[in-house]
């Protein structure tokens, strides 16, 4: 089934490693910061805003695992089930609106 996919990967892996040229590299391996000397560690304190975006994304992502089977079965479920799913989706929307209200979706 997904053997083809695996093979594709293998082929690309081999091809790409064959393609790579092996040139000797000089001592220009410094970190590139527009030609400036690197100041300080790579240690930068990141803001948790990134985390919150990822968090909202994860929760919308897992909802897909439940909604996709429902969508496949859509033709054989009664109207009531559709309303159930509507409630499901509305709760998600409520979560999004909460995040919006809290102002965490605002990029500063």
């Amino acid at each position, binding site marked *: *089934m*997904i*053997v*083809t*996919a695996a*093979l*594709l*990967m293998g*082929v*690309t*892996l081999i*091809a*790409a*490693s064959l393609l*790579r*040229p*092996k*040139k000797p*590299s000089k001592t220009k*391996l*410094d*970190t*590139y*910061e*527009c030609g400036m000397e690197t100041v300080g560690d*790579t240690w*930068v304190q*990141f803001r948790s805003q*990134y985390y919150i*975006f*990822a968090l*909202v*994304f994860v929760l*919308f*992502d897992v909802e897909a695992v439940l909604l*996709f089977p429902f*969508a*496949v*079965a*859509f*033709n*054989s*479920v*009664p*109207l009531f089930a*559709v*309303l159930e*799913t*509507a409630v499901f*989706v*509305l709760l*998600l*929307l409520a979560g*999004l609106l909460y*995040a*919006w209200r809290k102002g965490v*979706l*605002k*990029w*500063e």
Partner: protein
Amino acid sequence: MNFLTDLLSLIGDFISNIIHSIFSFSPSIADAIVMGLAAIILCTFAALSFMALTYAERKIVARIQDRVGPNQAGPLGLLQPLADGIKMFTKEDTTPAAADRWVYNLAPLIIAVFALTTYAVLPFAPNVVGTNLNVGVFYVIAIGSGSIIAILMAGWGSNNKYALLGAFRTVSQLVGYEVPMLLNVLPIIMISGSLSLIDIINRQTLANGNAGLPNLLYFPLSAVVFLISGIAETARSPFDLLEAESEIVAGFHVEYSGMKFALFFLGEYVNALAVAFMFCVLFLGGYAGPILPPYIWLLLKAAVVFTIFMWLRGTLPRIRVDQMHDMNWKFFVPVSIIHLLISMVLLKVFTDTPSQLEATGGILVSSGTRMLILFVASALTLLVALGIAARRARMNRLAEEEVLAKRRMENMAAAGA
């Protein structure tokens, strides 16, 4: 005529028969070899289309900007991609001394591999598909999200704070735009009742008593949102604000050079083409079309969609980072959810097959009427949402201008005093 239509699958059968007759002692080995060959052909196709696309894009964007574009290498600059390739091959490949070597070297590889694996499920003609997974759409979206890891690897492996910051920002863009993609694929799955790309295409043809109406006519809102989030998902202009080569050094791939950089580039283009193909399959009926053979139809449609990408790239200015996030979380996602709700209920209430009516009830209408109802609902949602968004944007701008005017007055007063 029939020969032309099935040309690809005939060639495939021919090759597969030859291999089977050579390895007649073991059918499974022959199968494996055939699959390997198919994989190699798909990879080659993707790589060749990458070369062709870079040339086409440079030419077309040049025309839009009133330039000539590549014209030195070969006639009309046709050999330009080849020259670029040779340049990339012979460029020195540096690895920063402080880099996390394994992570750094694996990242471009993984991006390219993930981009190429998408092609395994794309149907080029009725019988020409790498593998007809029964979870095709889901597979394509999941593979797309898998490459995000590679971006984080590149950012971390470079051991460069700008690369890491760039990776963080790129990832927060990519994950964001995946949500509207998921939400807008759902109505199409509902109407097709399957995740397989072949079934989704069949739903849009005249096969099995279907109406032959492309999904674009059912869900125009989904089509628009899917297309735009697809562009954002592949980080193409106008969404390339995180690797804007004319403004900042680059995003997560500052430290990469030579062939590794080329692999990132390849991943980007191959992904963009995959989005174009997916748009064709989901909304434009894939390979379906009269007279011309199916694969020609698919390529034509994909070319049209990709031209739209290039057009947008040549026309629109880059958007700001806060606009990019607002557009996704405060416009696309809520609008897609509301659209999903509306189309879910309408699809259930109005059915166009008698058996469906018996099974789950509803109102029986003709396929055309059903399409019209859904089209009107979807388009209305789009228009209303656009109206509200435009109103809000205007209010915000007015408020901003007021603040600016007030500040200007104060400044003048201060200067006068």
